Each structure stands twice: as C-alpha cells, then as structure tokens.
C-alpha cells in the first residue's frame, strides 16, 4: 500500500476491528469459539499442574473449569495456556487468554496500570513460619529469641523484623542468599525457624524435608499475598461471569452444597438454595447464562472446599485463613440473590 489513504483505511479497519471486539465482548467471543482459554502456571503443585496423564489439575485449574461449567454447562470446555511469570500479563492484555488463573497476587499496581481486573481471591497466601515439631512450639508468639533462617533482599526479611518488633520479641537472623543453602541450613538445624510464603513452606516441606512429618507450619500468617484470577479491564460482563463463578464455589460450600449433594438440592425448601440452583429466580439470565450455571459448577467442579481438599490438602495445606468466614477464615462470597 503506497498511498496514505490506503494506510488510513487499513488503520481505520484495524480500529474498527478493535471496537468490534469490545462491542462484542469476551463472553460472546467465548461462546462463539466454544471454549474458555485459560492462562495457568506451567507447573505449580496444587495450583496448576498436569498429572501423569497430562490432565491439568489444581485450585487455579478448577477456577477455569468453573467458568466453563457456568458458560457452557461443561467443565471440560477449557483450553489451557501454560504461562511463565513474565508472559502472564501480556497474554491477558493481548487477548491470548480469556482468564488468567495463575497464582497472581492482587495489588493496586496490577489492578490499575497493568489493566487487570481481579475477580476475587481463591487463595490467601502470606508469609509464615516453619519449625521442627520437636521444639514443641504451637504459635509464632512463642518464638522469642529464636534463630530464624531467611533469604535477604525481599520483603520477607522486612516483614519478619516488623512482626517480631510489634510483638516485643527478639530473634537472631541467619541470612542466606540462595534457597538451596538456606534450606540446607534449616534442615541441618542451624536455625529454629524457616520463614517464607506459606505455599512455599508447604512445598519445601513436602519435597525437600528428609522427614516432612517432623516439621510444622505455625498458624500465624504475617503478610498479605492474596492470589486470585484476573480478566482484562473494560469488559464488565465477562468480569461478572468469572467473578460469580468463583463466588458460586465459595457460596456453595457455605450452603453445604457439594458435587455429591447437589442433586438432592432440588428438593430443598430453602429459598436461597432454590435460587442458587436456578429453580427460582432468573440469576443466570442476569449474567447472560443458563439459569443452572451455579448448579453446573458445583456438580462438575465442586465447591471451594472440595477443590481445596482435592488439590491442596494432600500436599499438607491447612485451611487456615482460607476457611470460610463462618469458620474463622477469610473466604466470603456476597449473597447470590
């Protein structure tokens, strides 16, 4: 194309294409292509990881499956795009994936300037403490005077100092740069405590400890790393669909609806249950989905607790702050009505 008019025309067409996509929306696009394209971690045990048969499993993977169950009534209509940490935001921004469910921490920078919309939190991670069981420590508040193994340079070290100061305790830091060496130091008994994110503690205990059962993770979590699925800015309908797919899983656990009991729910007299399974009201219509959207999620994927128990519990994760709000945790879904 040599003439400027041609260029302008092509550019206009390209713009048209963009505005078209926005008018059409992700939900329509997803329904048209027949699957949800979901960005997941390339391999993080418990969150997203292909098993020996190459089937994706995990807490994040279940969010993808829940969205597919809500949109299509079929949790298997997902295609997974394994993404590295560097790729994940571009993949969402460029439209390569429809949902990013890849253990991503919700921060204001990512929510605003990176153009992401976090739909909620499916795992509250945060810095915790691991100690050998034989020390007989039950709470981080008992750690006064302890020797603590920590990696330098991250907020981990800072959080540790703040926590001990706030609780008027002292500690002796053993600061080692490399993960490998800091773990060796801890397992060799050079320090009483090892600290990093709870999910990291659980995974090193499972994979690196000579005897995993000899180490316990204390219940205190001293920093905020809320991990959640995200969608693109500027598409509210799709945002709603993904957000309520996650909420439906949490709400189902609170209502004691599980994949095993959901079929009996039709007989329930509880109006909230009736609304949830789509027997009354038009909740699904409001999301531009089938009224049985939530029923399909629970039936095919399960509620949040089931997903947690299937994926994270075998690795040694406790519910802790990821329990329902009714049980002292932070998992709380707004009412479905």
């Amino acid at each position, binding site marked *: 194309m040599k003439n400027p008019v041609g260029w302008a025309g092509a550019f206009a067409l390209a713009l048209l294409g963009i505005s078209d*996509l926005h008018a059409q929306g992700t939900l329509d696009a997803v329904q048209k292509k027949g699957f949800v394209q979901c960005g997941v971690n*390339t391999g993080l045990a*418990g969150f997203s990881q292909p098993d020996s048969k*190459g*089937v994706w499993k995990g807490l994040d993977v279940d969010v993808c499956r829940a969205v597919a169950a809500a949109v299509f009534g079929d949790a298997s209509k997902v295609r997974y*795009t394994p993404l590295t940490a560097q790729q994940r935001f571009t993949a969402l921004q*460029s*439209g390569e994936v429809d949902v990013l469910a890849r253990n991503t921490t919700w921060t204001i920078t990512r929510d605003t300037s990176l153009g992401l919309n976090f739909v909620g939190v499916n795992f509250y991670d945060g810095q915790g403490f691991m100690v050998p069981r034989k020390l007989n420590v039950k709470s981080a508040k008992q750690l006064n005077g302890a020797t603590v193994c920590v990696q330098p340079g991250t907020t981990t070290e800072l959080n540790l100092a703040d926590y001990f100061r706030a609780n008027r305790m002292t500690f002796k830091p053993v600061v080692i740069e490399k993960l490998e060496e800091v773990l060796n130091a801890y397992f060799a008994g050079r320090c009483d405590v090892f600290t990093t994110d709870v999910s990291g503690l659980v995974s090193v205990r*499972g994979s690196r400890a000579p005897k995993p059962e000899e180490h316990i993770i204390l219940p205190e979590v001293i920093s905020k790393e809320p991990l959640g699925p995200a969608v693109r800015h500027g598409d509210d309908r799709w945002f709603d669909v993904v957000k309520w797919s996650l909420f439906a899983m949490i709400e189902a656990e609170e209502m004691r609806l599980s994949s095993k009991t959901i079929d009996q729910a039709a007989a329930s007299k509880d109006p909230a249950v009736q609304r949830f399974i789509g027997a009354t009201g038009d909740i699904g219509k409001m999301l531009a989905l089938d009224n049985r959207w939530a029923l399909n999620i629970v039936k095919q994927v399960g509620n949040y607790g089931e997903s947690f128990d299937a994926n994270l519990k075998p690795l040694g994760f406790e519910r802790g702050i990821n329990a329902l709000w009714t049980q002292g945790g932070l998992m709380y879904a707004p009412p479905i009505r």
Partner: protein
Amino acid sequence: MKWFRDNLFSSWPSAIATIAILWLAWKLAPPFVDWALIDAVWRSPDPRACRQPGGGGACWAFIAEKHRFILFGTYPFEQHWRPALATAILIFLWIFSSMRKFWNWWLAAVWGSGLALIATLMWGGAFGLAYVENERWGGLILTLLLASFGVAFAFPLSILLALGRRSEMPLLRTACIAYIELIRGVPLISVLFMASVMLPLFLPAGVSIDKLLRAQLALILFAAAYLAEAVRGGLQAIPRHQEETADALGLSWWGKTRLVILPQALRISIPPLVNTFIGFFKDTSLVLIIGLFDLLSTIKVSLQDPAWSGFGVEAYLFVSAVYFAFCFAMSAYSRRLERSPAHAGAPRPLVDS
C-alpha cells in the same frame, strides 16, 4: 599384548594416564552400577517404594510412571498413539533423506506427504480423528518438530544470507551483515521473549499469532544467522580461480553459484554446519521459558509433582540419554558424509560434458 604396549603404555605419561583412568573407573563404575541397576526400583506406581530407608538405588519407577507425559506432554492420553506415530514418521523421514541413493527430486514429494501425514495425525479433525489444538502438543514430538522445521527453513535462509554477505551490492550486503550481527549479538532467550511477550502487544487486538508459531519463527531467525556464518566460512574457502574459471565458461551468477561454488562450499562447511545443527537441536529446549512443553519442560513439570519430587538425577539422566541419541546420530552421520567417496578429495567436473 603388543597392542597394549603400543597404545596404552607407549610412554611414561601415557602409562600414568592409563593407570589413573583405570583406577577412576574401578572406583566410580561399581557404585554407579549398584545405583543405576542393582539397587534400582524399576517399576512401581507408588513413589513410596523408592523412598524406603536403606534403598539407595535409582528410582526408574519415576520414568515408568511419567514417561507418557514426558514424551507426549498434555496431548490427550488415549490419543497418544498419534504423536507416537508422528514421531516415528518424522524420524523415518530424516533417516530416509540421509541416504544418498534417495537424493532425488521426489524426495521433496516424500517430505511433503510425510509432513501432511504428521499434520493430520497431530491436529486431527479429519478421518475420524478428534481435533487437538497445538497448545496441547508437547514432549519429544514438539522438540523434533521445532528442530526439524527450524533447520528446514533456517538452512536455505542462511545460504541466501551468506551469499548476500559476500555480494557486491552494497545495500544487500549491509542488510545481510546488519541482520546477522544483530541476531548474533543477542541471546536466544531474548529473541524468544520478544516473540512471545513483545510481539503480541504490537499486533492489533483480536489478531493473535499462535504461540508455537511465534516460537518457531524466532528459532528460525536465530538459527539462520548462525548457519549463515558457517556457510560463509565454506564460501571463503573456495579458491578465487574456481569463480574465474566458471566466469570464463560463461556461466551466469546463479549458474556459477549453484553448480560450482555452493556444492564445494557446503561440503567444506559440513563440520561447522553439523555443529550448529546439534547446538540448535539442544537450543530448542529454551522454549521452556515461554511455557511450551518440549522434552525438557515436561521433565521439569514431572519433577514438580510432590509425590515424585526429588528424582531429578534419574529424570535428567533419562532426558540426556534421549538428547544424546539424537545428537550422536547427527554427528556420526556427518562424519560419514565427509568420508563418503563423492565428497573425497578431487573436485567433481565443473560442468557435465
């Protein structure tokens, strides 16, 4: 006895080296054999069999459990025969084309139909085969496809680049030099990152180039620059009089290049070319940083499984064996190619008489 004296104990340094190596082998081999063969756990669906106290052997059960995922990635489990067959066809195509007697025009036809067959097998969507999107391709076939297509496209491109670099047209020459030096000046990782992270941002919304295709393009562009320098080395080794003789015979530039210069230049550059091919085959494993499940990534992901973690030595020995088999085959073939009669010493007649 004489052979021993001549080869192993011909001088004092040689004798000492022989004894040192024998001693090392005697020290290292038995523990390795114990670990890898005698104490090893060969088959067990339960990782606890490998973790028993006192069991200091290799855990080949890890490979037995994970081999399907390692070889085929996230390809649908019950359809694994398709990538298996495709891998076999691809390997067959390479063996077939390595034999001189098949170097005919119809070799192209064989490759064409072979690749069509592989595409049908891998993608499906025809002849009753279920469609499998290429995001699910993985394992050995992905490594082989990336390497095969990489070499197949990069090699012709590299010849053009090498010729362009020696061209007398300044603009063309500068462009080729700029390209080669630019690509050689950056690491492959950054080229892959550009292709996988930056490129999608420049494309208009709604237009997306497949992730696998982007990685493949990056690999081709990268390999072409390196191969071009290997080819240029061959071109520079051709004596000037060859070109002048061809000119005197009245050959056109293309005729001269095709019939006189290239056949000799490429023969000379076989060792560096094969060197680059082998390096390139292993370089494809870098696609793991952009989330493609090639052979090395599937191994890494398998090791992430908490039930089976900690068997890294077994896993990486296995994957090294696979890489070694392919790389050694390549280098063995190149040695044969250099020695083969048609390529020895005397130049062939320049033109058919």
